[in-house]
């Protein structure tokens, strides 16, 4: 009887309960548990032993190799990839935002289709393209994009290309959100006072699209910083990004505590980076927009 009363008096809580329980049990608690496990002791050859030691953290944070070639490396790649992604995602987003009707739908579908197709297929597609190295290089040389043949497969360039490819649809979605809300009369007003198309873009459209760029960059950076599938398939262990290292340490080397520690380091550094980034952007840009 009491329970029934409680249900009627607090409908939202009752509705939320099953979902919340599930999420709490299998996401929150596991992550929390992982924090605990990161202090465990790894038993080589066997499983692990309960403990409270900092060895795992020391192993990563105390080792310059890890710091430079994994953490900093992942950061560099993610930052560069994010920059490239936003850059490349902008023209299509602007174009699509300005089109209408059928054309818009078709273009939107084309640009967002990678999202509906599994990562494995997409990466495989790029592997096939990269294997035709000869062909790719010929085209790129002819187009003037490069000055000498480049090795793509199992190279850093290939990984970056693939990461950017997977990230662009996410960036486009966020950019479209911002650009789509833009009132066209704002651009018209600019042209009316004498701004040509480029000036109107530079002074009106572009500044007003910064929220979309910002949101997009957050999503893309988070995605790429912890990237795992792309470096796995395209680089093997030669390009140890954070996500990949976690996988190798846990699933191949069976060093669970170490992997857990790296996961924590990944989460914390991600949060710190994104926090600092948000603060910087807000200070530089968003005061004017009142956001």
């Amino acid at each position, binding site marked *: 009887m009491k329970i029934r009363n409680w249900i009627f008096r607090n409908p*939202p809580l009752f509705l939320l309960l099953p979902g919340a329980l599930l999420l709490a049990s*299998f*996401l929150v608690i596991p992550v929390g548990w992982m924090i605990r496990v990161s202090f465990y002791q790894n038993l080589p050859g066997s499983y692990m032993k309960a403990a409270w030691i900092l060895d795992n953290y020391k192993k990563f944070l105390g080792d310059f190799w890890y710091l430079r070639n994994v953490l900093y490396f992942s950061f560099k790649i993610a930052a560069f990839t994010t920059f490239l992604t936003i850059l490349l995602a902008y023209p*299509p987003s602007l174009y699509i935002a300005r089109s209408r009707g059928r054309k818009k739908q078709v273009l939107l579908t084309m640009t967002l289709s990678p*999202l509906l197709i599994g990562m494995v297929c997409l990466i495989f*597609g790029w592997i096939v393209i990269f294997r035709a190295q000869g062909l790719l290089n010929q085209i790129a040389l002819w187009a003037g994009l490069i000055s000498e043949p480049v090795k793509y497969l199992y190279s850093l360039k290939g990984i970056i290309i693939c990461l950017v490819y*997977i990230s662009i*649809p996410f960036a486009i979605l966020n950019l479209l959100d911002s650009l789509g809300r833009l009132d066209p009369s704002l651009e018209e007003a600019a042209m009316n006072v004498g701004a040509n*198309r480029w000036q109107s873009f530079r002074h009106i459209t572009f500044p007003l699209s910064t929220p979309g760029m910002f949101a997009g960059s957050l999503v893309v950076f988070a995605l790429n910083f912890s990237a795992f599938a792309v470096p796995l398939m395209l680089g093997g262990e030669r390009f140890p990004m954070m996500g990949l290292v976690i996988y190798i340490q846990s*699933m191949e080397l069976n060093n669970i505590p170490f992997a857990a520690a790296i996961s924590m380091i990944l989460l914390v550094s991600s949060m710190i980076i994104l926090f600092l980034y948000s603060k910087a952007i807000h200070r530089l840009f968003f005061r004017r927009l009142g956001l």
Partner: protein
Amino acid sequence: MKQKFDVGKFIFSLVTFMIIFALIFPILVLIVVSFNPKGFILPPSGLTFRWYHQALTYKDFISGMYVSFVIALVSSGIATVLGILISLSLVRYRFKGRNLVNTFFMSPLTVPAAIMGLGIYIFLAKLGMAKGVFPLIIGHTILIMPFPIMAISASLRNFDPSLEEAAMNVGAGPLRTFFSITLPTIKTGILAGVIISFINSWNNFALSIFLSTPRWIPLPMQLYSYIKFEYDPSGAALSACLIFLSGVVIILSDRLIGLDVVMGIGSRKNS
């Protein structure tokens, strides 16, 4: 009528279409290779279904499809049902901490795949359930839960509450109102939620790799092993099949729901 050639506009369109072409390029390549008798050796020398035959009769692929289908079906089912409940409470009621709760339910999107996979694995291992079908289902359900919530919340927000009030005015109780009035009206949101979550589970690779056992290997992982060890055009054929399937989903959802709804939600993280 005089019309000057607008260089700026031309370059803008050119760059845009080059980028869009680059986006569909790998997909095109896979499709072309899958029909090509000489496989990876381009230019295409003919049309063959050999690779498709090989792919679709390959037992690992078949079992992969079965596994992925079962897992996707179950997890999207659970996620959608939970999604309905959660959306209802988030949209209809105002309570303290509502934003926090919303963020909480969106959190699977922000947790990196590797960490989620590892975490669930360790935790379930402790509970004695190391890997297998149940961990996979649980993991996938958690992963895709935000999608039905987003889809159904959007639908609910556009829903006019006076429709429900009218029902209650003529005597329908809350449960009856829900099933007769609310549910049918938000069915587009529910459908969109089911489709998006199914697709995300079906395509998932990063999470599955932490939770699968030799007996339960989802299709993306089968494809990955195949590419790693065999690398022949039947991998492309399978990929092409999956691509065609996605195409069918796109067309279907356009007919049933409207493409913009699906696209708008379909995608925060896909790993």
